[in-house]
């Protein structure tokens, strides 16, 4: 018997893919293949090993960028939330990073760091870090004062208050930031491959677009979305494991 959340996820998948298949068959757009055609292309890429080679390239900047953005982002966010001086120094950097159009920043990055791994990691971080840092710092700053006071009244030290009160209290918003940031990071990884130099999955997308191989193009896009969804599910499991009380009945 399927759990309710798994059933809903499969059902919504079935609805979307069904709609996609229908749209492809009724000729909404000459460039839109049907769902089954795209899945066949994906299957072919898997069998030929092409998709795995592509991910070997894409995963490098993606994984590095996501790890840096998550751990260092949360760390900076906590520090910014706790210290006014640090807030004054670092918040503007991340606010600008979030607001500036990436397409305009990429030529600057290429000039500074070339067209290799470094630039691509930067793109992932620019997409992912601001929302992680700003969410974390906001949550830390807005910890309800009465719980902090309670900890002090029961003889909690400064360290106790930070580790046992502020961070658990901030964790729902921190994880919301991680979900948004990591999703943006995935987008960043593909964008870097489309705009800097084509490698990996981004290469499959642009090459198949240029050769009008639309099923392959959609297959590649589908695969990256699937990977992002799987990763978000993993994040949800991690949050539930670390902070069981956060699940107040509305996480799926």
């Amino acid at each position, binding site marked *: 018997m399927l759990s309710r959340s798994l059933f809903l996820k499969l059902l919504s998948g079935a609805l979307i893919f069904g709609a996609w298949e229908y749209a492809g068959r009724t000729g909404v757009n000459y460039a839109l293949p049907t769902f089954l055609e795209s899945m066949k292309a994906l299957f072919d890429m898997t069998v030929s090993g092409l998709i795995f080679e592509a991910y070997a390239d894409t995963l490098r900047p993606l994984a590095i960028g996501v790890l840096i953005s998550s751990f260092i982002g949360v760390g900076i966010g906590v520090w910014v939330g706790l210290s006014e001086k640090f807030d004054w120094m670092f918040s503007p950097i991340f606010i600008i990073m979030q607001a500036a159009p990436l397409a305009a920043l990429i030529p600057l990055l290429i000039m500074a760091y070339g067209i290799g791994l470094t630039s691509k990691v930067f793109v992932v971080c620019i997409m992912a870090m601001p929302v992680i840092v700003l969410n974390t710092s906001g949550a830390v700053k807005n910890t309800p004062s009465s719980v902090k006071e309670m900890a002090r009244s029961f003889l909690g030290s400064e360290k106790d208050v930070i580790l046992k009160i502020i961070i658990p209290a901030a964790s729902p918003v921190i994880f919301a930031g991680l979900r948004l940031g990591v999703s943006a990071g995935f987008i960043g990884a593909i964008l870097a491959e489309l705009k800097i130099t084509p490698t990996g999955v981004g290469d499959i997308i642009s090459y198949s677009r240029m050769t009008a191989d639309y099923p392959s193009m959609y297959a590649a896009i589908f695969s990256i979305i699937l990977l992002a969804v799987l990763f978000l599910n993993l994040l949800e499991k991690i949050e539930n494991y670390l902070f069981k009380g956060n699940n*107040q009945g509305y996480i799926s």
Partner: protein
Amino acid sequence: MTKEILENAVSVKGVYKNYGEVEALRDMSLDFPKGQLTSLLGPSGCGKTTLLKIIAGLLPATQGEVIVNGKVVTKPGPDRAFVFQDFALMPWANVIRNVAFGLELRGVGKVEREEIASKYIGNVGLKGFEHSFPHELSGGMRQRVGLARALSVDSPVLLMDEPFSAVDEQTRRKFQEDLLNLVKNENKTFIFVTHSIEEAVYVSDQIALLLPRPSRVSEIIKPSGFRHKDVDSIRKDSEYLDTVESIWKSLRTYVE
């Protein structure tokens, strides 16, 4: 009849508290006898919560001193436990972790502190809810958790900041009755802040009437005649009703 000299568990001497230009407390001096429940009663803004937090060591006094069991205190200590008006529970932790939190911060081992916490969870009537989370509990149950937490650390002085104002009227009445039994059975000193006249007269051994801005003690009332009566008859006792009326008359001029 022998006269007993009551020892004071807490003494407040000449405490001033300013928030910038606003003088919240002026030359506040008050004694809290050991083993009794003293209420701080007064209208909104008369500084009663401020005074309670200064006694708890959560706020520094601008001037003056607070003496607990013979020693001057300026910070929180193991000799005082606080019960919060808005419960101040950790929503990400279950009941037993919340109740054992005071012990956790004092470095008590997990098995021992959960054992102590379980006992107090039973005492406040929440047996069976050890692994529930705060969002699964009603307001009254959440305040019981806060009370169990304060009792678990076994401090000689218990400070309660309007602990029953955030629960419904029926639960509040039950809590007042339970508090009377608690005071009788536990050998602790209770300092109780409230703005409800009936509540103060019902539960207290002595009531300090505080008047607003700047806060000062206008009088100390020691209801005595009905203290020994059982919980159900107190609310009908004529001395109880007269005391409530006379306090209202004193406070009325400050509210109008």
